[in-house]
């Protein structure tokens, strides 16, 4: 059982870690997504002239932003927390502690930081007159939490395996962009050739990209069956990740 004080300490340490040494400190949390939004807007809207198909389609910028920020949170959480155990080898070798706290704190910090970024982006887009359903933000929260549990499950699995197989994090660095491009983050499902449209459902993130748009932009609809499947996948991942972690946990010290 993880004590809340301990989790909070590691969570704070994670946050501090990211901003330690940077001049702007916490301001960076707000600045970074805005800069990214500006760059994306320039490249995709003004250079590529990207459009979203459909009569009542939202602008490309909100279309991309609603799916891209949750993806960033997910990808970064996974990539960072995979080395959470390995990076804390010195601590693990000297103090008995529930090791999953290291992974959980790392995942939580990514999701917390990008949650703030996400909110900032949505508010800015709304302020620029895009049709964002800010009143649906509370509905988006459970979705964000579901994505968090999926990330947590995957992170526990990866962090445990990383102790044994050090190439995992490199492999993950290569695989994550692949996962992003096979999910409808930069494009809408309708733009795909007919035969690929069903295939992207194999990518677990497809659901999240479309569900966030469904809730916040009212673009596309999500049948309840897909929600059920997504919940099942997230919980199963969490369960499997936790089981594998617990199984390997007693042997971490031997391989660190």
């Amino acid at each position, binding site marked *: 059982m993880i004590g809340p*004080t*301990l989790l909070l*300490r590691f969570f704070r340490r994670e946050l501090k870690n990211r901003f330690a040494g940077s001049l702007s400190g916490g301001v960076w949390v707000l600045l970074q997504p805005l800069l990214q939004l500006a760059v994306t807007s320039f490249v995709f809207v003004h250079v590529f002239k990207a459009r979203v198909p459909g009569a009542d389609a939202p602008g490309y910028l909100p279309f991309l932003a609603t799916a891209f920020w949750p993806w960033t949170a997910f990808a970064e959480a996974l990539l960072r927390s995979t080395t959470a155990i390995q990076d804390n080898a010195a601590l*693990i070798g000297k103090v*008995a502690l529930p090791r999953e706290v290291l992974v959980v704190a790392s995942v939580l910090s990514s999701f917390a930081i990008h949650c703030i970024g996400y909110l900032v982006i949505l508010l800015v887009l709304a302020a620029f007159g895009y049709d964002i359903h800010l009143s649906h933000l509370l509905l988006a929260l459970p979705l964000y939490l579901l994505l968090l549990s999926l990330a947590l499950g995957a992170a526990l699995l990866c962090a445990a395996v990383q102790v*044994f*197989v*050090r190439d995992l994090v490199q492999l993950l660095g290569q695989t994550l962009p692949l996962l992003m491009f096979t999910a409808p983050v930069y494009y809408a499902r309708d733009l795909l050739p007919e035969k690929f449209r069903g295939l992207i459902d194999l990518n677990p993130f497809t659901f999240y990209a479309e569900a966030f748009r469904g809730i916040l932009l009212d673009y596309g609809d999500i049948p309840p069956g897909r929600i059920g499947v997504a919940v099942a996948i997230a919980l199963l991942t969490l369960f499997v990740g936790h089981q594998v972690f617990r199984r*390997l946990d007693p042997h971490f010290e031997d*391989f660190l």
Partner: protein
Amino acid sequence: MSDVLVKAHDLGKAWPKVHRSSDRLRALGRLLFRGNDRDRVSVLQGVNLEIRRGESLGLIGENGAGKSTLLKLITGVLTPTTGSVRVNGEIGALLELGAGFHPEYSGRDNVAMAAALHGLDGTELREKLPEIIAFADIGHYIDEPVKHYSSGMVVRLGFAVIAALKPDLLVTDEVLAVGDESFQKKCVKWIEDYLANGGTLILVSHSMYHVQKLCRHACWLRGGEVAMYGDVFDVTQSYLAWHERKSAAMQPARADAQSGVEFALLGVAINDDESETPALLEMGGTLRIRVRVRSREDRVPCVMIGIVRADGTPVYGVSTEIDGMVPQRSADGEYVCSIEFRDLALLPGSYGIRIHPMDTEGVRVFDTIERSIVMRGASREFGLVRLAHRWQDSTEAGA
């Protein structure tokens, strides 16, 4: 107050053999699907320990004997490969340097983390923080990153945290060796108070002084197994005796005298025992040495007897010639002499007895036999022998 705090049963630890990276993958597969991994190097085996509340145990042994591994198993940092260990209480552990301090963060930050790791919440930490900072006594360094600390400061801070937590069981690994004199004294004082108030201690140290001062029992680990367990004086003395024998054995063997020479030793009996096994003697006891010498030309030999510490340091030497004694003729070409040391003042430890036959004039040495004796006794005095002494009353001295 006699409930068992730590109980280890057939405790063992083995490390996996990992030479190539493919071994790691194989180990992962075995652990995931079969639950065990057999290809291992054992570092600790068959350790049975029972530590009761209020006990103090010193853990001694050479480098690599498994002391730190045992501590890590007890604190739960490592998982046992065989057997089990159970601890019924809160452990405060100071393993090696720093106890898991992160070098990038300030001392204050690390204290907060250490407190959280020991289950303290925010309010409890706020209460204890001034006490910790006062005990560590490292001044403004408390707000500097730990990487700028000297090793002594790291230990000061680590010890201060543990001292404030007052755990049921205190586990320290060579911690006292790092701090300076005044901090060592402070720590020793603190541990003594802690023990007096019913605390339990496991101390790893190469300083027999600290072990004897703080612990009532000792456990000697050798090659991953318990070589000896019991009263601290018995164990530390055997350990030191073993060490002295070992370092003596490392020195090149002296050239043995030839047998066809004029004078040769036929036998040496220590307390009537002619065997080569070390004789056990109590401090203050009696040591009798009986020497038989063969003389080729039936000339009277002179016999030299020396007592050395196991590392070769001479303690005392005397010969028949010095004392004006003459060995007695027992048969054709055979001479015998006996010597007795009473109220033996040798301090506990291991010693060697060297016997040399010399020519009649006491000039040339012809042969050497070395026997060892082990002095036993509960003494914390230093050196080789107990010199007669008396503490003077201060009033008497002033008068």
